């Protein structure tokens, strides 16, 4: 009974994080992006600086009609948002934010996280195909092409901290972390973060949803709640990427008073990385398809391989 209760508590915490953190990131993006562009962003919903804008959006989305195009493949079209969103929820269960504060510690945590994150892209592909819309199909195509460019450096860069910590357990990696990792794991950190951005289709890698060319890429035909789920998936993806970057490269809960304030350190670091994601969206223009492939195969993969060589040398040296 106690076990079941504890399990329920953990699940509620994970679910709460999944529902709240993406909203926080979204609201931050509203305001930070606006101010970075010398605007003020939403100001009305909720009174103080539009803090309730996303809640209002959610209420609106929930009430909007769900239009399924006549030409679309109905079942796949309806299922796609769920396939895009649920993997990020599942990933969150394995990410530790404090010592012992984790949905479920898995021995193979890192690999689990990478594998499940890869599933999410299927939802976007399904949306792209099932919409029976030219924009959507082109967007889906670009998603797949982008995935092919970035999944590899993403995975390669993720191996590096696991090698340094000699474990695939995410908590284990955080516990083995030392501040000097920030220096010698820096190439891996950069590759991981950039490839992760591309995986999430965040600007500057938002070619699949490039609004000036493809309307909204694979999500063009979506309305109402299903559209909202895709957006939620995107922001949950930012949270997951930020959390993974934190756990793998930035030392997770490590910091002064880690025993008491570990979770606060984690959340702070996650917030900073998420802010960087938003910042990059404002500052960097979209990359072209060929630039994307070139960056991946001629910069990120070699850097990641170099990082692996460096890490293995240091690891063996230290015995």
């Amino acid at each position, binding site marked *: 009974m106690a076990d079941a209760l504890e399990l329920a508590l953990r699940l509620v915490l994970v679910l709460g994080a999944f529902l709240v953190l993406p909203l926080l990131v979204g609201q931050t993006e509203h305001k930070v992006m606006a101010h970075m562009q010398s605007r003020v962003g939403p100001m009305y919903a909720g009174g103080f600086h539009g803090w309730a804008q996303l809640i209002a959006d959610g209420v609106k989305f929930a009430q909007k009609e769900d239009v399924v195009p006549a*030409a679309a*493949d109905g079942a*796949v079209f309806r299922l796609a948002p769920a396939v895009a969103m649920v993997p990020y929820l599942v990933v969150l269960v394995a990410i530790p934010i404090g010592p012992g504060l984790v949905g479920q510690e898995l*021995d*193979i945590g890192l*690999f*689990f996280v*990478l*594998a*499940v994150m*890869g*599933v999410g*892209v*299927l939802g976007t*592909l*399904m949306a*792209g*195909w*099932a919409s*029976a819309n030219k924009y959507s*199909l082109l967007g*889906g*195509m670009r998603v*797949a*092409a982008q*995935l*092919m460019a970035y*999944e590899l450096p993403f*995975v390669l860069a993720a191996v590096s901290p696991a090698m340094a910590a000699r474990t*695939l357990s995410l908590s284990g990696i955080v516990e083995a972390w030392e501040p000097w990792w920030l220096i010698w794991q820096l190439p891996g950190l950069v590759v991981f973060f950039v490839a992760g951005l591309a995986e999430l289709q965040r600007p500057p890698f938002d070619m699949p949803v490039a609004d000036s060319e493809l309307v909204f890429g694979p999500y063009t035909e979506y309305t109402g709640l299903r559209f909202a789920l895709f957006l939620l998936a995107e922001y949950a993806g930012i949270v997951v990427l930020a959390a993974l970057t934190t756990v793998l490269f930035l030392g997770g809960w490590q910091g002064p008073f880690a025993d008491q304030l570990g979770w606060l350190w984690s959340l702070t670091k996650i917030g900073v990385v998420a802010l960087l994601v938003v910042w990059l969206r404002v500052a960097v223009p979209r990359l072209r398809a060929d630039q994307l492939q070139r960056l991946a195969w001629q910069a990120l993969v070699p850097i990641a391989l170099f990082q692996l060589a460096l890490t293995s040398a240091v690891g063996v040296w230290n015995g």
Partner: protein
Amino acid sequence: MSVVGLLFLLMGAMAVGSALLVVTTARLVHSALWLVVTLGALAGCYLLLGAEFVAWVQILIYVGAVVVLLLFALMLTRAPTGVQTGLTTGNRVVAAATAGVVGLVLVTVVVAGFGGARVSVDEESVGSATSMGDAIFRHWVLPFEVLSVLLLAALVGAIVLSRGRASSGEETP
């Protein structure tokens, strides 16, 4: 029957059922998506058998890479969105018989090879990444290196084929 056994049966049934749908559905992309379910259920089976690492490899490589590649290939070809009638030929019976025989051979081989083997799953994860690494890098280094040659051959072959003519190709690995 234990919960694990029950779950295993469920996963197995899912794998077989969705595999049947893969070959019977008339829409190409649907069959690729049912393949996702099949492979996912298979990963579940691996997981229940204690092969933790292999299960997630199954998800990462097959669901995340191969199926995406497959969908990508389907999108690139002339596959229409609608139902394709020309996919099913009259050789149903022969095909079923062939599949049955191949399945039988496989089951026989596996049973003959590992029929009596028992692995205790619950005490220590036998299929964890560490034990896999130990096994590969202590005992099975040569097959591991040979695998790289196989992958190289696949890569070179794919490049040669796709340079020859713009073919949509099959999966290499």
